[in-house]
Structures are given as structure tokens and as C-alpha cells.
């Protein structure tokens, strides 16, 4: 039971229940939807970036399992002030570190949805620029 309490520990449940940075930005530089086709998890990630490619503001919205929503919420807390290229280099070890727990293969796609959508948003922003 220990491993499970790890995955559904208090911090993750709190982020799921009261996600941080949840909502819309007034004037985002980019807004992108990410979806987990196998689960139906959905996340919209909005970023505000300055001329140097630094993230100045972030908001997300979405629906889905606790793992997808909590990991997106945890991630958004880390994004402000970071450069776009730093984010594109991040991968699943970073998300596991944020969650503080190893996520098994059947749920890893849920955990990565927030990061992958952020990376997609950055790619979209770059293509627009």
C-alpha cells in the first residue's frame, strides 16, 4: 500500500483538488490543447513569453485524472522566469521529481501530459515568431 499512498499522497491530491495557475490568461502569447487519446485527459496550456523567450506568466485548464491535473499544476508553479529552451529539454525524470514518486508505465502518459503540452505550446510559439 505504501507505493499507492506515494502516488496519491496529500500534495498530489491537493494540487488535483485546488490546482495552481488554473484558468485563462488575459492575453497569452500562445494557447495549446493537449490530449491523451487513450484516456481522454485534456489540458489547455497558456503561456506568456517575453521577447527573450522567457516565460512571464502561465495558466492551464483541463479535465482528467488526478495524476494528469496535479502534475500539470505542479509544473506550472515551476515555469515562470524560465527560458523556453530549458523547458524543451525536460523529460519524464523531471516530472517524476516534481511528483516525488515513480509513475508506472500505465500512468506515465497521464503524468507527462502537462509537460508535453507546454513543450507543444513553446514549439507553436516559436513557429509563430
Amino acid at each position: 500500500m505504501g507505493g499507492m499512498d506515494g502516488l496519491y499522497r496529500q500534495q498530489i491530491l491537493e494540487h488535483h483538488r485546488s490546482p495552481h495557475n488554473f484558468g485563462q490568461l488575459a492575453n497569452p502569447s500562445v494557447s495549446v490543447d493537449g490530449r491523451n487519446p487513450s484516456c481522454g485527459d485534456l489540458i489547455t496550456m497558456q503561456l506568456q513569453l517575453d521577447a527573450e523567450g522567457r516565460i512571464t506568466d502561465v495558466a492551464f485548464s483541463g479535465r482528467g485524472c488526478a495524476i494528469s491535473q496535479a502534475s500539470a499544476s505542479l509544473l506550472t508553479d515551476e515555469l515562470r522566469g524560465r527560458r523556453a529552451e530549458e523547458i524543451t529539454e525536460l523529460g519524464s525524470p523531471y516530472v517524476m521529481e516534481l511528483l516525488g514518486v515513480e509513475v508506472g508505465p500505465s500512468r506515465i502518459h497521464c503524468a507527462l501530459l502537462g509537460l508535453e503540452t507546454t513543450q507543444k505550446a513553446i514549439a507553436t510559439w516559436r513557429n509563430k515568431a
Partner: protein
Amino acid sequence: MSNWHTTGGQLDPLKVRAAYPILATTPGGRPLHYLDSAATAQRPKAVVDAVSNFLLTANANPHRGAYTLGEDATTAYENARARTAAFLGVPAEELVMLGSATEALNLVARSWGRANLSRGDVVVVTEAEHHANLIPWQQVTREADADLEFIPVDDTTGEILWDRLEGLLKLRPKIVAVGHVSNVLGSAAPLAQIAPQIHAAGGLLAVDGCQAVANIPVNITATGADFYAFSAHKMGALFSGGGLWARAHLLHEMNPIETGGDMIREVRLRDATFAEGTQKFEAGTPDASGTVALAAACDFIDELGREQIHAHEVRMLERVLRELPDALPDARILGPRDVKDRIGLVSFSSDLVHAHDLATILDRRGVAIRAGHHCAMPLHEQLELSATARVSVAPYTTDEDLDALFDGLRDARMIFAR
């Protein structure tokens, strides 16, 4: 019968479990409570033994070798087809053995559909269809510039509104394709009632029988269907395997969509003539071992008794419907309320606990359920749900399995309500 039944003649799941070695295993160190038989049924040892026996004593390429072993393999394959046909109440000459039900439904759409659908023709399916009975029709109607129309579902329960078919029949659809039993709702299509209506309107009825054949007695001839597809692994046979029954004249008219060895009569360098009957659709070396497994699965299901299996599953589902609201009070149950209208499964959603979180939490007690859209995304869209949890039962489902399920649901409630 006494091997698997109580003295009163009911199925005894504790006895039945002994026939399935996997149920005694402990994946992850936990006893296995397998409640995902609608995704794939567990295999009785009798099926594995039959495959092993064929491969170790009768293995050769069917329809080819002019030697005794080759004849043995051909006999085993054709006997297995005949056994499966008898199980389903159809002539063996009309039962095409294929790799899966998906392949069977694609064959109907791509062979019959391409030859018979043209601009403005109408195909009707339900909004609750499994993707395997939806996408082939999307593809073929798009190619033919034909129209795809839908029997709608109730926005709250997801129940298929069969009374809407009558209006759709005024469009004189060339074919109506429906699941015999919905893999999300657990409801059965009223085939005996709709088949004559469809025929009277000049259309054909194609049925996806995947969720029916292992859970209730199915006599395909009695359903009134013109095409009937089924899957072997949902019956306890192998992953590869499935079949399509079609009326003889339809098989005769249809062109093969796969060509190659074993399906020909004569081949010249620039053209070929095809074999008649089922062989026309069975290009390449037939799956003899898979078909032998399927026949053994039919034997085993009949040994348990299809009426008895259904009665046992109804008892299990009754308990799920009764106790689920206690264990997870906000559970929204899809499909019919009355257990008599339900076959094999119960799907539900909860605002408190997402289906994926539920499945992960249940796994800690060894309870295996399905979470997701169950290959029916449009139905979930209609119900404004991203995912549901699905509990499905089988002849080997016990009260202990359900106890573990309800305990796990209470765990989930505790975790998410804290």
C-alpha cells in the same frame, strides 16, 4: 456438468476457477480479481491444452500437404470451424475464419460496402458503437459519398434509443450495423425486433457480436442478422482469431479484400480466379491452431452451459448494481437499470474519482478493471465523459472478487475525500 456446477445445477464459480490457472496467480504479489473479461476473457486450461495438442501432434499446413499429417491438420481445422459454426447455429460453409472481429467488420465494409454503396446511399450505426463497427463505415461511406446516420443515445444513461430506428428506416438504409451487446452499456440490441423492420425497408443487418457470444446463448440464424462478426479471445480462445458469418448469397457475391495463397482456384501470370465460399476470404495459411483453440473454447463454454453462465453473471451484476452506490455514492451508472436488460458488464463514472485513478487504486487490491473510453469515444462525448470505469464479469467471477472491488472503491473514496 457436475464438475462445474452445484448440486442444484447452478454454476459454481469456485469450481470453475480451477479451470483457469491464471486465476491462482498473484501478479504483483496480490491475489488476482479479474474483472476485465469484456476486454479479453481468461483462458481455460482446456483451450491451452487443445492448442498444445494440435501443435505437438497434428501440426502441418492445412489444405496443402498430400500426406497423412497434412490431412490431419486439415481435418482438425475444418472440424474446428464446424464446431464453432454449430456453437453459433450457422452452417460451417458460411463461417469465414479471420484474425479478429475487427477484420470481420472491415471485410463487410470494404467488400460488401464498396460494391454496394454509392452516392447518397445511407448506412446506419448507433452512437454507442465500438470503433471497430464505426470507423470502417466512416471510411467506406466517405469513399462512396454515402451518408452515415446514427441511432442516438440517451444523454444521461447512454441507452440506445432503438425507437428512433423507425424514422431512420424511412431513409431506406442499405445496411444497419449494430453491436449485439454494447461494450460500454451492457445492453442488448433488440435484434429479433429490428431485423424484420430493416429487411422490410430493403436493408441488411450487420451485427458485432463480440460481447454477446461468451455471455449468452447466441444462435446467429435466430437473430435475423445478415452478417455477424465475433472475436475468439473474448470467448477464452486465442488473441488471434475471430470470424464472420454471412448469408451464403452474400458470401457468393462478395469480392475478397485480401488475396494470395489458399484463396484461389487458378492463377495465371496476369490474372487469377478465386476459390468459392469461405476459402475466398481466407488468404494465406489458415490459423489452424487458433481455430482449434476456438472450438475448444466453444466446448468449454457449452460444458459450463450458456444459460448457466448468463444466470451466474446476472447474479454478479445484480450485486454490482446494488452495492456500487454504497461503495461509491456519486457513481453514475451507464446503461439499463434493470439487471435483466444487462449482459456481462457495468460501466460508471464518478466526479470524485476519475476512472484512471480508480483503476490504479483498485489494482492495489489485485482488482483489474478497465478505465477509459473502451473504444467508444463518440458515446463518451455524447455523455460528456472523458472516461468511465468498467467492471465485467465471467463464469469465474466470485463474490470474493466483488468484495475486493467494493473494498477498493471505498479505498478510493477515502483517498479522494480526505
